[in-house]
């Protein structure tokens, strides 16, 4: 239950407390992959791409009863204010893992045993909330690749800033804010597949944040579906 109180303050970038940054999603932007998507959320620019299901040389990851998913999240050196050294670090390894965990419940890979779906997420420009935008992009890329799925997962974060719960923290808000709660859901059932929290929240605030984040995910999901349908309608109409 989200209550709209009078004393909600305006945010630095002029958004309302429950307003997302502008989202743009494009489908099928790369040539050599099986599926790809490009997502812009505010100043975030993220490319996601999918190979597979395919055979792989990494046999030890494979399972005889179902297909598996592997995610690699990477930030471009020029995506952040001070240049990031190329290559994986602890942060990107963790995000790779939780992204795979967020996508896995939605996948139906039983018909592809001993195969692997590879997802590569590349942050070209970062401006807060890249993990949620990355999952959003990856889900669209998976749908584009024709990987069977129960649902297209969507991600969005809520947070606490100036003692107020707000949706979709930007980079500035994230740095100054008191808490950040990224959430990824399966929109049809509302089940949560990714949840992290860092910061300090009371239990009421936490509940409010989760509800607000789910509302945001629903908005994101609409944009995802529209982008997918538009892409193929364009293709179908030639």
């Amino acid at each position: 239950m989200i209550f709209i109180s009078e004393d909600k303050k305006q945010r630095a970038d002029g958004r309302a407390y429950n307003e997302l940054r502008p989202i743009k999603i494009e489908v099928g932007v790369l040539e050599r992959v099986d599926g790809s998507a490009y997502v812009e959320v505010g100043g975030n620019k993220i490319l996601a791409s999918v190979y597979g299901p395919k055979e792989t040389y990494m046999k030890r990851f494979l399972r005889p009863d179902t297909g598996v998913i592997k995610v690699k999240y990477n930030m471009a050196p020029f995506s952040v204010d001070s240049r990031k050294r190329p290559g994986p670090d602890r942060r990107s390894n963790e995000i790779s893992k939780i992204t795979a965990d967020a996508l896995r419940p939605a996948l139906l890979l039983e018909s592809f045993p001993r195969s692997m779906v590879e997802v590569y997420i590349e942050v070209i420009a970062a401006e807060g909330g890249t993990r949620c935008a990355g999952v959003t992009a990856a889900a669209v890329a998976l749908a584009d690749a024709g990987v069977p799925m129960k649902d297209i997962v969507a991600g969005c974060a809520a947070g606490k800033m100036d003692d107020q719960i707000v949706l979709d923290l930007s980079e500035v808000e994230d740095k100054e804010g008191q808490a950040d709660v990224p959430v990824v859901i399966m929109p049809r059932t509302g089940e949560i597949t990714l949840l992290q929290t860092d910061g300090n929240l009371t239990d009421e605030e936490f509940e409010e944040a989760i509800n607000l984040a789910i509302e945001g995910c629903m908005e994101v999901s609409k944009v995802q579906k529209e982008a997918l349908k538009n892409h193929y309608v364009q293709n179908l109409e030639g």
Partner: protein
Amino acid sequence: MYITPEITRENITSLVNNDKREDGRALDEYRNIEIETDIIPKAEGSAICKLGGTKVIAGIKPSIGEPFPDTPNLGVLMTNCELLPMADPEFEPGPPSSDSIELARVVDRGIRESEMVKLDELCVEEGKHVWILFIDIHVIDNCGNLFDCANLAVNAALKTCKLPKAKVVDDEVVLDEENTIPIPLNHNVALSTFVKIGDKMVLDPSLNEEKVLSARLSVGITESGSICSMQKGGDEPLTKEEIFSSVKLALSKNAEILSNLD
């Protein structure tokens, strides 16, 4: 490892021998080039270059650092390249492959040896503080001829890159983010890559043409027409005549390529 089907090899070779190509281009014809600049808000200079289906992003991050001891009054260029796994099913995640290091070094050589960037103007305080330009090449889609595409992306990014004015106050560098200056440049450099298929030299190879090449030659030429860098690759040798004719062709194509940067 990807294995090229034998009939594709035969088909491309026989097409080239008849002065034709898979995509209907002439042997000395470039694919469509599109360049977009200032695409990354966090990078001081950035550009994406699309050469046909090939897409390369270049980003430039400057920072203040110490000069090399042997060139105390010159700024520093650092070029790095990542062949992202999403660009090609054959590119694997992990430390840079020899291919990506070669690509970074060939592009770097063109910029460095042509003295494209006025490195002496990137010096803030001799021997202590100079600008270090980190040039990062991100290959996101490989449909052939990464060399030329990456070179154009880097050229475009350098052209739009803005540095904050730097002053030395009490032995420390103070940056004035409000006032920016463009990177001082002498001229641009074009790279033209040829591959030898059958007995012919082919400009701007597509992916399939790269797969069946016997030799490769990249020629870097400045706006003023001086040859500044060259790289030969591939398993087979090239004759002197092939090299000379390729360089001549590259010279004649130079203005056309560089016109894409304006």
